[in-house]
C-alpha cells in the first residue's frame, strides 16, 4: 500500500482562456522531497496555491495527509506549511514576535507556543536574530524566518514556492541540508525552484511542468534514461591505448568511439550492470584503466530537452 502524503488527482484550474493547470496528477510519499520545475507561467504556483487551499481546483482533487483540499481545507491547513514566493513580513515586529504571532494563529497556547517558537528558532539557526526587527533583515534571512513560520505548527507537509530564490551560496548550502533534515524527520516536501542543480541534490524526484501539464516525473536518473537512452562515457588508460578503440567498438552497446584529449570517449547504451560488465571486460582485455567517467546530462540539460519554453 502506498504511503502517499500528497496526492494530486486530475487537478484543473483555468483563468478565463488560460489553462494554468491542466489535469495534473502525481503523488509524493511521506518523507520524500519532490522538486517542481518548469518555466515561468507553467502552472507551478497555481498548483501549489491549490494545495495550500488558496485556490479551488475546477476539476479533480488533491489529498494531503488523506484530507481533501476541496472538502476539508481547514484540516489541510493544519497539517500543511506553505511558503509563498514572497516572504511576507511585518513592520515593527521582532523575529520572536513574528513567529509567536503565527503560533498563536495556529491555536498554540501557553508553554506549547513558547516551546514551538524556541525550537523553530533553534532549528533554523536564527537565535542571534531573535530580537531583530524582521523587516530590517536581509532578504535571505527573511526567507529563513519565513520558512520558520511555515514550520511553526509542525506541519507534516511543506509546500515551498521558490524557497531558495534570495539565498546567498552559503545560505543555499545550509538550506539544502535543512530540507534533507526535514525530510529525514518524516516531512513530505514539494518545492519549486529555478536553481536546477540544487534541486537535483535536494530532491528524491522531480516533476517537470509546462503549460499546465506534467511533462515528466521521476528521479533525475530515471528521466535521464528515458530521455537519453545512451550515456556518454570516457576512459583514460595507462600506457599506449592502441587497440582500445577497436576493442570498444566490438563491445555490445558501444558506438561513436573517438579519442579526445588523451581519453577515449564513447556512447554506451545499457544500464549500470551492463556498464560494470564493460569495465570488467576492458580490464580482462589487459587495458590498464586510470579513470572511467560517466558524463551524465545534468538537470539543466534535461530541463531544456523536455520543455519548449512555451508560456501562456
Amino acid at each position: 500500500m502506498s504511503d502517499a502524503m500528497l496526492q494530486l488527482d486530475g487537478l484543473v484550474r483555468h483563468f478565463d482562456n488560460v489553462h494554468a493547470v491542466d489535469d495534473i496528477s502525481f503523488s509524493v510519499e511521506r518523507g520524500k522531497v519532490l522538486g517542481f520545475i518548469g518555466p515561468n507561467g507553467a502552472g507551478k504556483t497555481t498548483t501549489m496555491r491549490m494545495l495550500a487551499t488558496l485556490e479551488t481546483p475546477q476539476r479533480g482533487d488533491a489529498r494531503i495527509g488523506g484530507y481533501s483540499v476541496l472538502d476539508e481545507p481547514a484540516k489541510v491547513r493544519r497539517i500543511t506549511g506553505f511558503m509563498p514566493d514572497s516572504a511576507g513580513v511585518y513592520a515593527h515586529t521582532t523575529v520572536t514576535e513574528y513567529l509567536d504571532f503565527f503560533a498563536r494563529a495556529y491555536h498554540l497556547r501557553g508553554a506549547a507556543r513558547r516551546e514551538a517558537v524556541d525550537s523553530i528558532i533553534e532549528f533554523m539557526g536564527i537565535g542571534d536574530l531573535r530580537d531583530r526587527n524582521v523587516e530590517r533583515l536581509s532578504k535571505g534571512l527573511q526567507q529563513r524566518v519565513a520558512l520558520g513560520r511555515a514550520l511553526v505548527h509542525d506541519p507534516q507537509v511543506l509546500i515551498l514556492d521558490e524557497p531558495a530564490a534570495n539565498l546567498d551560496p552559503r545560505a543555499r548550502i545550509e538550506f539544502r541540508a535543512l530540507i534533507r533534515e526535514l525530510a529525514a524527520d518524516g516531512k513530505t516536501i514539494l518545492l519549486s525552484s529555478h536553481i536546477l542543480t540544487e534541486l537535483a541534490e535536494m530532491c528524491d524526484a522531480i516533476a517537470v511542468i509546462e503549460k499546465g501539464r506534467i511533462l515528466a516525473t521521476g528521479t533525475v536518473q530515471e528521466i535521464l534514461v528515458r530521455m537519453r537512452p545512451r550515456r556518454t562515457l570516457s576512459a583514460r588508460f595507462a600506457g599506449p591505448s592502441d587497440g582500445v578503440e577497436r576493442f570498444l567498438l566490438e563491445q555490445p552497446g558501444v558506438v561513436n568511439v573517438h579519442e579526445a584529449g588523451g581519453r577515449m570517449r564513447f556512447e554506451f547504451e545499457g544500464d549500470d550492470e551492463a556498464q560494470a560488465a564493460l569495465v570488467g571486460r576492458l580490464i580482462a582485455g589487459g587495458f590498464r584503466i586510470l579513470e572511467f567517467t560517466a558524463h551524465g546530462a545534468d538537470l539543466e540539460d534535461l530541463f531544456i530537452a523536455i520543455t519548449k519554453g512555451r508560456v501562456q
Partner: protein
Amino acid sequence: MSWHPRVFAWLERASDWLNPIVVKEVRQFTGGREFHSSFGVSLMLGLCVAFFGAAEAISATGTPGRWTFGALIGCLAFFGLVVVPLGAFNALRTERLEQTLELITLTTLSTRRVVIGKLLAQGVKLATLFAGLAPFIAMSFLLGGIDFVTILVSMLVLFSWALWVCAVSLFLSSLIKTRAISGLMFGAVGLMFFLVVVILGVPQVLFFVLSRGGVGSTGVSVGFVGGSLPWWVLAMATTFCLVSMMNLVLLAENRLSVPSENRVTPLRVGFAAQFLLLVAWVLSFIGEPVPTRTGAAEALAVLGGLHLALVAMFTVTEDLVLPRRVAMRMQEWSPVRQMLAILSPGGGRGALYVIAQMVILLAAVRILRPSGAGMGFSFAVCGYICFFSGVPVAAFRLLRPAAAAAFQLRVAVLVSLPLVMALPDILYYMLWRPYSFDINFATRHLINPFRTLANWPLVESKNLFAIPVVMGLIGVAAYSIVIGAGLKMTVESAIESSPSAPAREPGRADVY
C-alpha cells in the same frame, strides 16, 4: 521576585485568550513611531488646553471647565476620527499589499476574526489616547461649568463613533487590491475624515447636542443634570454604531475571504438579523393607539423597503455558478440545512431571500393595520424592488446563465433607476412638445418609484394602480426566472463539482 516579571508573566498568560491579531497589532503600534508621535502630540495638546483653561479660571471669567472640555473633545475627535481610522485603513492595506493576509488565511484564524481583531486593536489605541487625556478632562470637571454625566456620555459617544469610523476605514481598505489605488484611496479617506472633523465640526455638534440641557452663562453647571437625554443619545449612538459596525465587519470579511469560500451566508444572516430587528422594533408599537401604529407601519414600509432595495441589489445580482467548494458542501447538507438554503450564495437563492423578507414585511404591516389600509403602499414598495432588481438580472440570465457578471448587473440596476426617473419627462417633452415645463406628478411618473411612492395618496385617490401592479407582476415574474435559473445552475454545479469527475490520461504519474 520583583513584581515586573510576575506582571509580564501574567500578561503573557492572559494574552493567550486574546485574538492573536490584537496582540500582534498592539505589539506593532507600540513598536512603531506613529503611535508614539500621536500620543505625544495629544498629551502636548491636552497640556496646552489645560494651561489655558487654568489661566481662564484664574481670571475668573466665563465657564473654563466647559471651554476646556470642549477643546479636549476636539483634540480627541481629531485623533479618534482622523488619525486612528487612517491607521486602521493602513493596517489592513499593508496586510494586503505585503501579502501577509494570505499567510494569515492559511492559519486557523478566520477572516472575520482577522477583521474583528483589527477593529479591537484600534479600540485599544483609542482607549490609550482617551486614557492619556483623562487627567486633563478630570481637570475640566474640577474647573467647573460642566457636569460629570455630560463628560462621561460625550466620551463614550465619541469613542463609539471613533470605533465606527475605524470600521468604515477597514471596510474601505478591504475594497482595494492594487498599490496605486490604495494610495489614492488612503489620501481620499484621510481628506474626507479631516473635512468631516474640521469643516463640519462634528465634535462641536456632538458637544452642543449633549450640553443643550442647561447652558449657563457663567459658572453654572452645564449639561443635562437629572435629564434622560444623554442616556438616550448614548443608547442611540452605541446601538447605531454596533449594528452598522457588524455590517461593516461582515462586508469587510466578504471582501477579504478567499473567493473559493462561502462569503455570502454571514452577510445574509447579518442583514436578515438587522431586518428582523427593525420589524421587531416596529411591532413593539402593536398595543399603541391607531395613529401611532399607522406611523409605525409607514416607517416599516419605508425603512424596510430601503433596506430590502439595497439587499436586493447585491443578492439578486449574484452569480449563479457557485464556487466548487461551496457547491460540494451544499450537497452534503441535511434536510434541515437545506431549508436554510436561501442564506447560501447564488442569485436564485438571493431572490428567494428577498421575497421571504418581503413576506415578513407585508405580514408585519398587516398586523399593525388589521383594516388592510396602507397595504397598497407596502405592496408597491415590494413590487418596485422586484421590478428594478429583477428585470435586468432576469434578462441577462436568460441569455447567459453561467456568466460571472455580478458587478455589471449591479451597475445595470443602478443605471436603470435614474433612467426611469428621467425618461418619462424626456419622452413626454419630445413626443408631445408641451408649451410649459410641468413637473407635477402625473400618470407618466408612475414608472418612477420615488415619485409614485411619495405621491401615494394621490395614486390611491385617483385609482392609478394599473402601472405599479403591472410592474410588480413583471418584477415577480423576473424573480421567478432568476430563481429557476439558479436552481438549474445548482444542479449543474453539483455534477461539475464532483471530485470523481474523470481525469484525463496525460497527467497521470506515479508515486514518489
